[in-house]
């Protein structure tokens, strides 16, 4: 199953297959179209990343009683193109590598981080039929890729040959690994409740949103998301005041741009996952009635919009948290992770089991 199975893209797909098959055989056409599809998904994620960056700058600005970006951009969304301007600026800068940094791992670090984020986007159900790659075990795939990110960050930190990067990288590793566990436990709990390890299956199983059934689970997931994304109050690996920029200290130009992009890809993708797992995916009340009454392509767009609204609600929450809190210390973070969140995640698991028994 792919985006081409959705009512939105299916006509285009069959038409394209019809035209291309005689030219480059049917297999060739399918491969080409699959590549185009993944390109479409990546572009979709990247456009949303631009929106996330804009929203973060603008909303943070307003929360701090200032304006945020103002100049680059069209009316109403003043400053929207600021992110593109920043991207172009980073693109034109020299790609710099410290003399004694390890060339391979230094370059591989940002690449891995970006790849891990984008690849998760392939399996997220953005709307009716809009799943890049439908698989019965997609939750496993997502968990596996999510744990690839700490590896990239650690490579960045260790290969830079810089003491700040070293401390930042080791902090990142400790932080991400200790927060991986509660996050996985919570995700597994939802899978248990839904009886499926497919993200789409979990989303579709939510007659009642899991945020209502598992409020504790949602809170734990939100905290682990903050920790894994290194956002305030857990922006410890890049703690500016003591470690300059943590594992990113030596990165400049487009390498830095990739790390920043990876951060915002992470924000978008994890918010998507939170919506799929806790907020009922793209589902909404009266969905079936609407599905029966309007054109399938239009219905796909409606579900996509509903999904994005929920995603941006979660992202708003993340931005709000960033404006309000201070950075915690690494030992406090680890204590919170192992001594509070981990037991609570287990409590959450038993709570879900209780629900399962109660419902029979």
């Amino acid at each position, binding site marked *: 199953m792919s985006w081409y199975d959705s009512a939105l893209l299916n006509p285009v797909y069959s038409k394209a297959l019809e035209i291309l098959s005689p030219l480059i055989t049917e297999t060739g056409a399918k491969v080409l179209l699959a590549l185009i599809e993944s390109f479409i998904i990546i572009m979709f994620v990247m456009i949303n990343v631009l929106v996330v960056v804009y929203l973060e700058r603008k909303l*943070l600005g307003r*929360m*701090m*009683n*200032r304006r945020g970006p103002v100049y680059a951009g069209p009316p109403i969304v003043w400053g929207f193109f600021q992110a593109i301007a920043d991207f172009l600026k980073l693109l034109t800068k020299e790609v710099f590598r410290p003399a004694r940094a390890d060339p391979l791992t230094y370059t591989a670090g940002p690449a891995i981080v970006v790849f891990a984020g984008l690849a998760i986007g392939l399996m997220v159900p953005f709307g009716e039929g809009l799943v890049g790659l439908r698989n019965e075990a997609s939750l496993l795939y997502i968990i596996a890729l999510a744990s690839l990110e700490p590896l990239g960050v650690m490579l960045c930190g260790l290969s830079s040959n810089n*003491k*700040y990067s*070293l*401390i930042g990288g*080791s*902090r990142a590793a400790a932080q991400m690994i200790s927060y991986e566990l509660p996050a996985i436990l919570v995700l597994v709990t939802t899978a248990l409740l839904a009886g499926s390890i497919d993200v789409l299956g979990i989303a579709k199983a939510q007659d009642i949103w899991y945020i209502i059934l598992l409020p504790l689970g949602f809170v734990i997931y939100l905290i682990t998301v903050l920790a894994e994304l290194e956002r*305030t*109050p857990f*922006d*410890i690996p890049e*703690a*500016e*005041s*003591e*470690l*300059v920029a943590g594992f990113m200290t030596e990165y400049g130009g487009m390498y830095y741009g990739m790390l920043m992009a990876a951060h915002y890809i992470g924000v978008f993708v994890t918010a998507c996952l939170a919506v799929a797992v806790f907020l009922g995916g793209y589902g909404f009340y009266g969905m079936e009635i609407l599905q029966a009454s309007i054109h399938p392509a239009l219905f796909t767009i409606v579900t996509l919009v509903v999904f994005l609204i929920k995603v941006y609600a979660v992202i708003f929450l993340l931005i709000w948290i960033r*404006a*309000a*809190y*201070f*950075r*915690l*210390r*690494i*030992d*406090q973070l680890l204590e919170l992770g192992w001594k509070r969140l981990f037991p609570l995640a287990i409590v959450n698991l038993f709570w879900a089991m209780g629900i399962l028994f109660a419902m029979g």
Partner: protein
Amino acid sequence: MAEMWVNFGPQHPFTHGLWRLKVKVDGETVTDVEPTIGYLHRGVEKIAENRTWYQFIPYNDRLCYVASIAWSEGYIGAVEKLMDIEPPERAKYLRTISFELQRIASHFVWLAAYAIDLGNFTAMLFAVREREFILDLLSRLTGHRMTYNYPRFGGVARDAPIGWEDRVVRNLNRIERKMKDFIDLMTENETFLKRVQGVGVLPRNKAKAWGVTGPVARGSGLKTDVRYNDPYLLYEEIGFEPVVMKDGDCYSRYMVRMQEIFESINISRDLAEKMPSGDIQIKAPKKPPEGEVFNRVEVPRGEASYYIVSNGGNSPYRLKIRSPAYIHIQSTKVIMPGHNVADLPAILGSLDVCLGDTDR
């Protein structure tokens, strides 16, 4: 990780100026620190010997650029003692008010730096925003926003413009109202309290032994304040009482400064409401007679003192400046070892050093 030396500074977001802290870390734990200063040495004491008594006034503004008036007050007070003159009543009022306003402005700079040290941008911007209302008052009074060059021997440079007193009351009322933001965002924020409570304890006996002054000493339970021990200007009349906290940790130093902001608001508002009319300047002699003088004032960072020797000439024969921040930087050696790397900015921020007057 083996023990290693990490340089914090001279170019590092942690340093609050131009100096260097060599930190020996064992993993995340600090085992030893070594402060190195001298990067901002301008030879102010030697410059004083080559300037006339009047010409040296603006240099005092540049000792600590966020507390200009306080430092000029120290020099002016010393030379006035030497000349044996007393400013007229209105000038005393203007000088005391501007002195206290300067303290509020300086504490806001500290608050901004402390917030960003601990990873919150919102509180930093709010502090800078409120400081602007003080700068508005001071720029109307003195004609500048930063290096005011305001006090003169036996008076002040110029009179307050019409309606300035009302403006003082109005702006200070606003600041007092907006201090609620900091109470919500910092004083009663769990993440902030976690970072400062019980961190960086400087016990009372050590505080006394190392000679720290100002809010740092008062945070350790020492009731030392030049305005209280050795009152000058109007402090005897208003019955000044210093704020003292007992614990000696970052939190009590933070609370001392926060309460000092309120105290200074009250003092300057009361004085502005009962400002007398009259002369602002008496005729001062061109140069003081032969002799030597010691004068101390309470600048926002602690006790600043001037020792001046005059041989009756056009310029000081010898001028010695004692800076409080110099002592505070040295005291990092007793406070910091044993703490986490992430605690260093929290401790240093609570000491509130200013390198302009440390290196002189």
